[in-house]
């Protein structure tokens, strides 16, 4: 395999696949580095290995991924599965680990297409066995054909709750409790964005239909839930939740939580590119131009890793990045570029039309990060909210300072699960605006690397 490429994409979800196929078709030498063993990313995970039965359960939006994977497989793009990227440099060098061996390769452009993750939103008992993400349960179905035995309690806020409830139900899993933390009157408050959303009436109708269907299939539904906690001895045994006037406790063995989807920003943060803060959905996202180019000229971010807009938008953004890069690295003319961009730009505009409404309706509830002192913020190092507040009182006003004194963020996950909470608590306790703070930094290796592997890795020779 060559060491040098025109472009390397990290991730084989819709953005990475569409980028690579388009880029290859435009004459670029492109490689996709994928941590999984088959293409699909998270949304189209394991799509090549599904049965007709599982495809019918997962629905047409999932099956659509087949065409992306087919186009990718049929293109001249190279595919490197089972390969985990762990360091990127702004000059286009990339280190990855594959089957226990690390290597450094280089490209003129790097396209980060590592997608998104479920928002880590701590609550008492969230680290107990029996609690997992709603998306995680969907991933289990897609990748391993595993389902919870049920009954299942689902809690949280976001459209993913609906589709997973429907998937579980079709697989014979009882969803006994469906507890929504979507802020009260959310739809009303965002009504002004509704007309724009109706540019995609089919999409909106489908969402409404899913809402109706979900309400019918769950046994108990509660809206405007304001807080919740899991209890048990070594595993979840009961679950309590509260709303305006009341509180309830139910037996529970499987709790699926979901408080939204946020971009995975490990690589952008490792590179130190500029980020912006979205006050509605409350997350950091890399600052990008309309083609996905970051503040570092050789680095692009495509798909949900740039902003969470869903799979179709991710695919379109992947194509935009490919066209832009091709316009610089091949003899693609300006007029031809415009011709290619036009329909994609239009499609993307349409695809994004409902987003302000969706993002507004499903925004995280205001007190999401008003954590009880005893809530565990850093799962890896078991750092509680009160320890973080204690550090702040002692004068530690930045994430870096709090991290050094509490060890929050120093565990194996490298703050992936705690940086959101850490940022929100610091802002709350110090009165700073998050937009004036900086995202928590990350150093390479962004993924674990064994000592033996580091000793044997092939590094590229320094050019200067």
């Amino acid at each position: 395999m060559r060491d040098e490429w025109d472009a390397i994409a990290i991730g084989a979800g819709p953005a990475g696949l569409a980028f690579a196929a388009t880029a290859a078709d435009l004459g670029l030498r492109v490689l996709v580095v994928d941590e999984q063993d088959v293409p699909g990313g998270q949304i189209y995970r394991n799509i090549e290995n599904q049965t007709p039965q599982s495809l019918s359960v997962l629905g047409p939006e999932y099956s659509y991924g087949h065409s992306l994977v087919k186009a990718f497989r049929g293109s001249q793009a190279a595919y490197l599965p089972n390969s985990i990227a762990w360091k990127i440099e702004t000059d286009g060098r990339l280190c990855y680990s594959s089957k226990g061996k690390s290597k450094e390769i280089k490209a003129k452009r790097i396209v980060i297409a590592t997608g998104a993750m479920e928002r880590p939103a701590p609550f008492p008992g969230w680290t107990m066995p029996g609690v997992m993400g709603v998306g995680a349960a969907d991933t289990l179905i897609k990748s391993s054909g595993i389902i919870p035995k049920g009954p299942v309690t689902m809690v949280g806020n976001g459209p993913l709750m609906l589709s997973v409830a429907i998937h579980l139900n079709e697989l014979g899993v009882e969803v006994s409790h469906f507890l929504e933390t979507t802020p009260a009157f959310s739809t009303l408050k965002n009504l002004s964005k509704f007309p724009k959303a109706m540019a995609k009436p089919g999409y909106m109708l489908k969402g409404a239909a899913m809402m109706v269907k979900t309400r019918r299939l769950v046994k108990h539904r509660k809206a405007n839930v304001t807080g919740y906690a899991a209890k048990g001895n070594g595993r979840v045994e009961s679950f309590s939740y509260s709303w305006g006037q009341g509180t309830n406790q139910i037996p529970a063995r499987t709790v699926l939580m979901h408080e939204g989807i946020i971009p995975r920003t490990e690589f952008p943060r490792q590179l130190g590119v500029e980020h912006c803060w979205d006050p509605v959905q409350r997350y950091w996202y890399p600052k990008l131009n309309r083609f996905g180019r970051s503040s570092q000229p050789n680095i692009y971010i495509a798909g949900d890793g740039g902003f969470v807009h869903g799979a179709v938008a991710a695919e379109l953004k992947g194509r935009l990045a490919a066209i832009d890069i091709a316009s610089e690295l091949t003899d693609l003319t300006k007029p031809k570029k415009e011709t290619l961009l036009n329909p994609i730009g239009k499609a993307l505009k349409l695809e994004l039309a409902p987003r302000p409404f969706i993002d507004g309706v499903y925004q995280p509830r205001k007190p999401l990060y008003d954590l009880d002192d005893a809530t565990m913020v850093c799962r890896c190092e078991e750092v509680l909210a009160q320890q973080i507040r204690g550090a702040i009182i002692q004068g530690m006003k930045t994430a870096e300072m709090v991290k050094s004194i509490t060890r929050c963020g120093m565990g194996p996950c490298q703050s992936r699960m705690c940086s959101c909470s850490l940022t929100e608590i610091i802002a709350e306790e110090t009165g700073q605006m998050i937009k004036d703070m900086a995202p928590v930094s990350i150093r390479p290796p962004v993924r674990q690397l064994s000592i033996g592997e580091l000793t044997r890795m092939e590094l590229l020779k320094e050019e200067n």
Partner: protein
Amino acid sequence: MYKQHSQRSGRTVCIEFEDSPMEVPEGISVAAAVLSHAEDHHCRYSVVSGEKRAPFCLIGVCHECLMEIDGKPYQQACMITAREGMTVKRHEFKGGKTNAR
């Protein structure tokens, strides 16, 4: 807690989980195997307090599913496919509270 839904190939592989043989469907991740076939589906003990932990995000982000696989410590079980003869163990290691407060 969890169970197999679709028998894709119908084939199974035998892994050694905590020194006992365990038959699991071909193609599933080690994390999925622990969730669906182990009696107690926690996959590790916290290195700080020793409390039980289980896979949480299933996409390689949360690092809860760290297990010893084929003698290598701290492998992300959700990212590794179970293979015939693979040995899978929970880390028993508990480091105790670290130096920093």
